[in-house]
């Protein structure tokens, strides 16, 4: 018996174990999963083609210097532990990780990121900041849905969280030192908060300016 025959025998075993859970039960459980994402006021979201998505619990480390000021008042899950709308944390390599749970308190997120050295504009109103101008340098000006693996998310400045590449992205990793000179970030939303099908969180490069990114 050679390797091919061995592989054939192994593959023949695929049909010998039967998944007996009815599809109706799977869908019922799926509805519960989806409902859990739609906590009140939350914009947990799945985008259209490129996938936008938010969610996943966040524990706010009280001692972290860049810790966020949660806008949404989520229930506490235990002593000293609160779920927050988002968390900003600086990683060992100097990059900044933003984990999203809720699209609220854009001013707080903007303030926190700017304090950590990121020139950024954050709006959760469904519209971009009119004071922001696209950063005009090659592909960097591309419109980039959050979580996309293409465009600037895979380029200089920021990347999608690699460990979540095969699951729903919930975090954005920003490397301020890798941002092009004169560029900042714009984080904004579109669609209807709470509507899983058309709500998206976007990140794109903009020209840094006092009116847009604060510097």
């Amino acid at each position: 018996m050679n390797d091919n025959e061995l592989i054939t025998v192994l593959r023949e075993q695929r049909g010998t174990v039967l998944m007996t859970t009815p599809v109706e039960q799977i869908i019922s459980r799926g509805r519960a999963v989806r409902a859990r994402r739609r906590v009140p006021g939350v914009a947990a979201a799945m985008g259209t083609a490129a996938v936008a998505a938010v969610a996943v619990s966040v524990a706010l480390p009280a001692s972290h210097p860049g810790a966020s000021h949660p806008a949404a008042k989520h229930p506490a899950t235990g002593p000293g532990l609160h779920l927050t709308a988002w968390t900003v944390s600086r990683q060992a390599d100097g990059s900044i990780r933003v984990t999203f749970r809720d699209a609220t308190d854009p001013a707080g997120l903007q303030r926190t990121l700017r304090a950590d050295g990121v020139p950024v504009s954050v709006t959760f109103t469904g519209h971009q900041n009119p004071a922001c101008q696209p950063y005009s340098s090659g592909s960097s000006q591309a419109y980039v849905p959050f979580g996309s693996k293409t465009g600037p998310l895979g380029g200089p400045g920021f990347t999608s969280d690699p460990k979540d590449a095969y699951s729903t992205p919930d975090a954005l990793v920003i490397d301020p030192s890798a941002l092009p000179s004169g560029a900042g970030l714009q984080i904004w939303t579109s669609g209807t908060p709470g509507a899983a099908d058309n709500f998206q969180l976007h990140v794109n490069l903009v020209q840094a300016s006092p009116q847009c990114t604060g510097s």
Partner: protein
Amino acid sequence: MEAQRPDFGEFYREVKDECLFAVLVSVGDRDTAQDLVAEAFARAWASWPAVSRHPAPVAWVIRTALNAGVSRWRRRRREVPVPDLALVADRPAAGGASGDCVDPGIMAALLRLPARQRQVVALRLVLDLDTEHTAHVLGIAPGTVQAHLGRAMAALRDDLIPAWQEENKT
């Protein structure tokens, strides 16, 4: 959203059994595997607009199931139970309550492999994913996938072929 359900149902019917077998090979326990696969498909349904456009939806399901297994293990702070190999080998080849008829000798040989090798076998050989997707799902380098696969094949040959030759003699 309602219109997407038939597509999901078709996807589920087409791949559910091979996904279950792949996860069973990875985690070694039938009930645990079924729970993990069911949870993964539920999450796939909840994110179906995105998952359906994934380049390898089956890989997404398996990755999610394996991640759910890791999360479960962390919550319980104990190992996912692996069945006693002797019990596996002694299990009747045909049908339990679920109708399974997996070859006990093959399953026992698979369960004797290290966990990572089992996962590679499940993805590369059972699900027929290519090396790149397998590496992506497991978070390892493509070369590492090849190395694990090579070792796993050698171990399975050593384990299974003598037994089959013995059977043929008799």
